[in-house]
């Protein structure tokens, strides 16, 4: 039996195909203005990788902000539950999940059964989200993926005075104009990001083990700064792209709902 999880986020759309034992294929594409188009494209890509026909997918759960717009979904479940499901499947000792997506950040506490106990989300602005890093990378004229490596080469982080993404962008421009190295700016950006996320984590009661999911989990500089700030070792999801955790959780729910 093949099931699917489709996670339509603000920046990327993800699909995971699951056969009850393992992930058989996955895809990550940029989200489209019309969420349905993104969902179809991501599904097509995953199906092509797994060489399965879309008709063979028995059940699909949609998640993410666009979950109601997944045209082929049989059911929808919030990404908080899906990230919890996915992370617990990958790492059953996890009790706190930090999920940093494109436009929001969530901290989820879970119990020993892998069920959501409490959660907090950012609700003031885009500071502490993937969008913040994306904007800063654009100002530095580098690819988002390069930001982490560039930060690792920095040795004297700049300070971003404002939590606001727009004002922080103005700060970065000021530092560039002063001739500060991109590496030190990138390090400052990652530290600033970790600081914003740290505020949210501290609102929740952090329980070990802690893991990080979502696209920003791939930025090792931010993760390292977050570890320093929180004084905990953060489990890195290595066997699956951490950006797929929500879609994986959706696929696991789909498998359950399909009677698997």
């Amino acid at each position, binding site marked *: 039996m093949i099931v699917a999880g489709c996670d339509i986020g603000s920046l990327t759309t993800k699909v995971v195909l699951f056969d009850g034992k393992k992930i058989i294929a996955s895809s990550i594409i940029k989200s489209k203005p019309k969420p349905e188009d993104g969902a179809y494209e991501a599904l097509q890509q995953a199906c092509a990788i797994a060489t399965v026909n879309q008709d063979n997918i028995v059940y699909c759960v949609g998640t993410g902000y666009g979950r109601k717009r997944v045209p082929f979904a049989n059911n929808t*479940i919030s990404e908080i539950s899906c990230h919890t499901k996915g992370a617990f499947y990958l790492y059953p000792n996890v009790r706190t999940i930090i999920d940093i997506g494109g436009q929001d950040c969530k901290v989820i506490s879970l119990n020993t059964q892998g069920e959501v106990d409490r959660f907090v989300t950012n609700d*003031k602005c885009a500071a502490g989200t993937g969008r913040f890093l994306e904007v800063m990378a654009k100002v530095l004229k580098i690819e988002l993926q390069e930001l982490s490596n560039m930060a690792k080469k920095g040795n004297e982080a700049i300070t971003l005075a404002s939590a606001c993404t727009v004002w922080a962008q103005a700060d970065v421009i000021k530092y560039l104009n002063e001739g500060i190295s991109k590496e030190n700016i990138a390090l400052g950006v990652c530290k600033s990001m970790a600081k914003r996320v740290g505020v949210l984590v501290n609102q929740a009661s952090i329980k070990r083990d802690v893991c990080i999911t979502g696209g920003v989990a791939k930025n090792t500089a931010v993760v390292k700064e977050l570890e320093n700030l929180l004084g905990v070792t953060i489990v890195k999801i290595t066997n699956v792209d951490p950006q797929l955790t929500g879609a994986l959780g959706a696929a696991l729910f789909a498998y359950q709902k399909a009677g698997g």
Partner: protein
Amino acid sequence: MFEEFYTIAQSINNEYIAKVKEQGALCIGYTCSYFPEEILHALGIIPYRIKGLNVSSLSIADAAFGPFICSHPKCLLQHFALGDYSFLDGIIVTPGCDSMRRIDECIRKTAVNLDLPVVPPFFFHYAVPHKITEYSVKWLVEELHRFIDSVSAHFGLSFSYDKLKESIAFYNRLRKRLEELNALRIHYPARIAGADAVAVYVAGLSMPRDRFYGMMESLLSEYTGTALEDRKRLMLIGSANDDIDFIKTVEGETAVVVADTLCYGPRLEVDYVDEEDEPLHALALRYLNHSHCPRMYGGYKQRLAKVVEAIRIAQVEGVVLQNIRFCDLHGAENGLIERDLEKLGIPCLRLEREYGPLADNERMRMRIDAFLERLEVRRLVCERP
């Protein structure tokens, strides 16, 4: 059955107000549930609870209030500045909170800055103490006298204690009807959606009360209700809300709001006014004591006890604590309530939101869905052998 209530609740002016105004009646708006409508009713004036619905821009209000303030009073001001409240003959501003108190100056300043005739003919600052003591009740009685003298003199009306006693008795009867309505959503399973109940409450604050009483009687005699089976039973707590769409967002298709402590909500229904007491003293006592609002100092334990009691009576499964951004009163108190309810094993969800059409519904929907999924797991855990 609820369409008419929705129409009235979701618009600023309505045909009922227009009709009585045509006949020469006066209509006075007020901003806070601590103002006793009975006084206006006794004078033959239509009380109107000012709403901030359907504002699409805060261009004027932002300039007057500044950015770091709750969007609810801003929406009220925007309506005033656009002339939407020109049907009001007066306004009573109460220091329910600092933001709402500031609407007094902001309306006047906007009138001057933009040279607009937005200050109603009668303008009264009605102060309400923040403590419940013997002397604060006495003080509030004096404030009620000051108000009666002021409004009577301004409009050339004659005030009568006999009329006030009749109005108090009328409002107690109205409270009884509202209590009957509330019983429908407390019922297990709920027989009325929270959004429908709130539409009735809000409509009641926006039209002549005698007419509303008649509509309530018809509703209660005709409405048999539909059992809302299997819905998660929620309680809603926090900042003022007259936005029925927000209640709908919270309820979705799988939940029902069976209790709330919201301003514009069923606050009017609770705590009857003592008809045997001296009328103004009875009103002062009731209005100072009745409310769930954190504007009152030193009343947290009593408010928490009321919430816990409401949870027990309505068999609430989870509590949604919402506050409008920059609402310090509810923002702070929601944190305490969340802490204490979770200790009692009652799941809570805290939401910070913007008021009205600026609300980020989808982000809120995601959090509410996740909370409802948490409640679903809890149900399943309870069923586990």
